[in-house]
């Protein structure tokens, strides 16, 4: 079978190789992938900036969708023909995360989905909602589950709450769709008026162009009668955390997400004087994925926003398209 490998870092060094089709263990399922989607983490992984000590060769990308083509003798949950996606952390089925669960991430700790076939334990998969294509379903495992975890698990979002969303990356757009369909107020920042219009169509209640309003945290205060927002989905990390702490209300919730994080200036006074709840979010469990699928897909028939689809031979172009940062929505790779 064909597979991509990170052997040495760099987009140009990504190698398309021939590998043996994986053998299927007793409780494993063989998945034939039809689509994958990109996250910023994948770009960093390929470039070596996510983990300079990454064990190579490694098949990159965490997010994929495909069909079951073979099952091991002990498999009870799946049958040939089922449409499935592997979960981001293969070992995080439910409950709180632990070191053991955290070290099972696809396209990082373990081989990812950028290959024709993959064998997964039957517990490490979720069923794809019927109304989604493989390309659409491939966008969900990392960014959409992260958005769900931030808003509903960590934030206990309420329809009367307001949510501040930063930019139009994968997590922010999924959070926009989830919060909007739930009836919550969504305030989104972007540097592009074109992206602002697209976000409005997806249900954003209020939009702030942060090129025009560098003090966007004040704009958020103005929009909320100077009380601040109930929730911030913080994806900018180091650069924006201080402003997010200004924009959030007394006793509010900041979900801290993202590979963009680094060292950030944290003013302890703003956290404890405002009684902020700051929660680090690293994707989510299979149980959260299943709940997200119910809400996002089966109850509301939402569809992920796809920016552009590339062929299996065009992975380098897809990564460069992500690097350029001009996309709105997910970047997908379709396997022939």
């Amino acid at each position: 079978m064909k597979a991509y490998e990170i052997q040495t870092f760099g987009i140009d060094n990504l190698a398309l190789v021939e590998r043996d089709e994986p053998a299927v263990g007793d409780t494993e399922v063989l998945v034939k992938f039809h689509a994958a989607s990109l996250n910023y983490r994948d770009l960093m992984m390929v470039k070596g900036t996510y983990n300079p000590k990454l064990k190579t060769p490694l098949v990159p990308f965490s997010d994929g969708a495909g069909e079951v083509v073979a099952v091991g003798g002990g498999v009870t949950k799946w049958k040939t023909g089922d449409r499935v996606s592997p979960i981001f952390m293969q070992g995080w089925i439910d409950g709180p995360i632990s070191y053991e669960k955290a070290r099972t991430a696809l396209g990082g700790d373990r081989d990812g989905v950028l290959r024709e076939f993959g064998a997964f334990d039957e517990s490490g998969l979720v069923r794809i909602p019927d109304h989604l294509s493989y390309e659409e379903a491939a966008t969900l495992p990392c960014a959409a589950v992260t958005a769900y975890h931030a808003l509903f698990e960590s934030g206990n979002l309420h329809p009367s709450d307001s949510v501040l969303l930063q930019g139009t990356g994968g997590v922010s757009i999924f959070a926009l769709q989830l919060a909007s369909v739930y009836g919550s107020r969504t305030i989104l920042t972007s540097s592009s008026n074109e992206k602002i219009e697209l976000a409005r169509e997806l249900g954003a209640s209020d939009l702030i162009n942060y090129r025009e309003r560098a003090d966007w945290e004040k704009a958020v205060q103005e929009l909320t009668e100077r009380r601040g927002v109930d929730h911030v989905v913080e994806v900018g990390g180091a650069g924006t955390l201080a402003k997010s702490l200004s924009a959030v209300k007394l006793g509010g919730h900041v979900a801290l997400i993202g590979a963009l994080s680094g060292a950030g200036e944290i003013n302890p006074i703003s956290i404890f004087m405002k009684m902020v709840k700051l929660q680090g979010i690293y994707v989510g469990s299979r149980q959260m994925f299943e709940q997200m699928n119910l809400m996002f897909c089966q109850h509301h028939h939402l569809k992920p926003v796809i920016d552009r689809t590339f062929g299996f031979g065009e992975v380098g172009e897809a990564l460069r398209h992500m690097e350029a940062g001009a996309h709105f929505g997910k970047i997908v790779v379709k396997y022939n």
Partner: protein
Amino acid sequence: MKAYTTLGDGIDALELNETETPAPKKGEILVKMRAAALNYRDLLVVKGQGGWKPGERRIPVSDGVGEAVAVGESVSRVKTGDRVAGIFLPRWTDGELTPEKFVLPLGGAAADGVLAEYVAFDESAVVKVPAHLSDEEAATLPCAAVTAWHAVSRRSQVKSGETVLIQGTGGVSLFALQIAAARGARPIVTSSSDEKLERARGFGAFQTVNYKDFPNWDEKTLELTNKAGVDHVIEVVGGENLNRSLNAVKVSGTISFIGLLAGLSAPVDTWQFVAKNVRLHGIETGSREMFEELNGFLERHRIKPVIDRTFEFADAKNALRHLESGAHFGKIVIKF
């Protein structure tokens, strides 16, 4: 009556004067104070640091207990003879903290405190104190003990068998130690003094770390927990110290942040929050309802606050100086 007042110009400039005894207005009660207790924040007010500096002469100190000696018209919650303590934020009776409730803390820049022979309180802004506590003991509760209860029981929700890292032996830390130990948790206490650590063991510390001997106390904590990290951290320092707390806490652990001491903004490794799914709670004292819940807990477990030393009312300046010296273990009390 006699009352101390400050302009935020230092301990020496504190004035003890004869002023008019307040008359309880409608809905108010008059309390004859019997004991007060000091918090680090009282020192900040008396020394006039930053936003703590009073704009006019103010009666300092937030924590005190006394006897209701007169009640105003339509008072129903309190009767003459009741032993009561004022709550730190007089308008925060219950529910979430809102901007409307987050005003006029006792003994702050904008409201008088309790270092006076008589104080008039709104009847809704006091609690009856536990019967098993002396006046001196009960006087220590409103700020530090309620903060510790809010952190340990409400936010971090410390359970039996869990490990809790408690930093230092200040007021909040000692209450957190006693509460966590009574909940069956395993407190790990840090201090720079072996003598204070030995005393902390007497109040339920399961393990101790001298951070003079182990400047990398986070690594030592990991060692004590078989590399798993602690379930909870009670962070009272802030600043760069937060990075060590992030290192010492387990994946999916909580940090309750009561960071008055370091005060300064510092670069914090936000990626640690994300990768470890850590939850950070800013804690700002607590409501009357939390105070009442705490009192029930103290009664059931027969917990008594740790008192370092008791000063006479006339000797209040020396009490503040003793606090400033930092040599105390337990609360500093002023007896009327």
